[in-house]
């Protein structure tokens, strides 16, 4: 892991036998301001290729904004984002071919059936029909959605909607997966299935970035983690390095602070 100070600009070294491997995602001084609020305050982060990377942070930490800027959905005010050495904002089409995105808090084309939505995502990427059809069938089966393939997405439950969005992000076999809150409202069985899929994906050389505020999940699932709060990276590295012997949750609370040890509420114990 490398952790550069905010604002440091630089070009990635061209891949070669002598140079270090190109990171799957490299953020350099990314910053974004909404009106008076600085949402992201110069985040720099390298995600090594082949890692399972967790991004954790309290609500409003800037996780979603950072990931949106890294994936070409939101133009940063400052900084660059490189996907396997390709600049997202200079060469968006090339960069977008390399990654699959599960954005948080955006709608889907929910008047399509689940099957149609994933097919649509594949066709938009310019894939040929046979490949799309076979992959859609496999993805729906893997995510336990095949019994609802023909149901309109608008009638799906929240967890099913997450899963169909994940399938849309996977259809073109990207080298990097950026998943914003992928396990929110997903039932435990499906979550376990998704974890299996992601583990195998990482084992075969893919890179996964997930954001979450479930520390336990990140500690069990990821090999790397970055703690983000107030638009800055507080700590980043392998999970072992960051948690430094404590549990990730305790370390997170220690880093971010803000636990209030409330006195009072005694009446709550009086019944």
């Amino acid at each position, binding site marked *: 892991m490398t952790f550069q100070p905010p604002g440091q600009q630089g070009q990635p070294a061209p891949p070669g036998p002598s140079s270090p491997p190109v990171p799957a995602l490299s953020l350099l001084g990314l910053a974004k301001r909404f009106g008076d609020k600085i949402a992201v305050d110069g985040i720099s982060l390298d995600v090594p290729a082949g890692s399972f990377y967790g991004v954790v942070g309290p609500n409003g930490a800037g996780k979603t904004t950072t990931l949106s800027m890294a994936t070409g*959905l939101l133009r940063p005010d400052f900084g660059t984002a490189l996907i396997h050495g390709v600049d997202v904002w200079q060469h968006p089409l090339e960069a977008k071919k390399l990654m699959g995105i599960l954005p948080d808090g955006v709608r889907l*084309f929910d008047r399509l059936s689940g099957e149609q939505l994933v097919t649509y995502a594949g066709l938009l990427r310019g894939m040929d029909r046979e490949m799309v059809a076979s992959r859609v069938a496999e993805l729906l089966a893997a995510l336990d959605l095949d019994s609802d393939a*023909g149901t309109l997405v608008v009638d799906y439950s929240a967890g099913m909607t997450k899963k169909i969005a994940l399938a849309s992000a996977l259809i073109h076999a990207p080298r990097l997966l950026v998943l914003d809150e992928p396990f929110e409202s997903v039932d435990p069985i499906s979550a376990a299935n998704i974890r299996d899929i992601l583990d195998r994906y990482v084992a075969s050389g893919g890179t996964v970035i997930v954001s979450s505020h479930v520390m336990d999940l990140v500690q069990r699932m990821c090999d790397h983690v970055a703690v983000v709060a107030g638009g800055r990276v507080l700590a980043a590295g392998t999970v072992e390095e960051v948690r430094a012997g404590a549990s990730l949750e305790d370390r997170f609370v220690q880093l971010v602070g803000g636990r209030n040890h409330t006195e009072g509420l005694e009446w709550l114990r009086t019944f």
Partner: protein
Amino acid sequence: MVAHLLRLKLTLLRNSVRRSPWQLVGLGIGALYALGIVGVCVAGLFVLRGVEIELAQTVVVLCGATALLGWAIIPVAVSAADMTLDPARFTTFAVPMPQLLAGLALGGLIGIPGLATSLVALATVGTWSRSLPAAAGALAGAVLGVLSCIVLSKVVTTATAGLASSRRFKDISAVAFLIPLVLTGPIVAGIARGIAGSGDFLTGLARALSWTPAGAAFSLGGELAAGSYAAAAVKFLIAVATLAGLALAWKLLLQRALVTPPYAGTSKRRTGGTGLFGLFPATPAAAVAARSLYYWLRDPRYAGALVVVPLLPVLFLFQGSQSGFYGPFQFVGPLTAFLLSWSISTDVSYDSTAFALHVATGVRGADDRLGRALACLSFALPVVVLFSVGPFFFTGDWDKLPAVLGLSLGVLFTGLGLASVISARYTVSVPLPGDSPFKKPPGNVAQTLAVQFGGMAVLMVLVAPEAALVAAQFITGSPVPGWITLVLGPVLGLALFAVGIRTGGAWLDRRAPELLAQLAVNR
């Protein structure tokens, strides 16, 4: 407890206004509108004081029955039931049932429809202030009648809550509601003619209704004014029994609804195949076209526009048959071309943040533009040609056909091209996905108006050559400009269409993330 519920309703009303000054403006406009209608009704009811009892009784009873019908149907039909005091929100508070019912019923009076109905009903006291018993009867009738209206409305909305919360019902009712709205003119004309022709029938209808729950309450004043005390006593019993029966029904329905929340059941479907996605070529532009076509069919916000289209010739034909002049009817083709082509100027705004998929997949701007335009064109072209040719079968003025057809095609292609440019750059505020097409959209109204009217002005300029040629033929009577239009319209239109797709595509390639950010503001 009843007072608590009423205070809650008032607080909710006040807070909804406090959220933005525009809410207050909206409420003010609604109140003014209602005040105008109430004023006319009240004045009319006082005028009825001077006419003979039979006529006044007919009007009052029929209007009362109509109000009852309106309170029963309208909240369900427009999915606009006043849910500020949704009984489901009180389930955890253990409010005793009688107090809950009384509080909710009286709470129904607070708000524009409740107040307007109450005021008009009380004005019937003015109609029957011919003697003390008659006025007292009218007052009792007004109270019973208004309460019946509100309780009936609660019964209907509670009974259909499960139905009304299902997406399919919302979709269909929102679109179906448009049909009578568009045809208001012909319907009102038809009813007016019917009333003019059958005064006796209405008197009979009112007399019959006054013996039923629908009209008993509002007939009390008239019966007492006519001196038929026995009939009045029976009708009073009918009215009281009606209110009691409705209240009982409401109580039973509510008791059941409170423990069985509505379940928007949906049928699982294993696979529907990929439909149009399998039929169209496997290219990004064709995929966008297939997706857009599904939205034209499945999304009530689009389908609403489609429902209006077949009604257009009906309206113009009706207008022509009334006046004997079919001039405007000849131009139903260009008008339809304008409406349909312009409808895609809000396409990206309708997508809302689902547009993120297009940004994330890196679909080329030109493919996005072309797909949306082709989807619209696939049904707009045949419809526009049909509507351009059709009217001439009625008018027989065939030498104007080339001009009108040329203008239609010119407007259609130019409009699609221009709309492709506009929706690549500007968003407008539209109802969000899943909302009723009638719901007031969130967001910047001023920008919406500027974009829409500015765009239409540009469109006028772009189709000016065709329009000028059509005018030339209508003025000079020479067929030559018409034939030129028939050639010029499609040629110029297609050229502008191509320019529009390319320009819009280039803008989208450069600014798709900014467009997405604008859409995200109103999600």
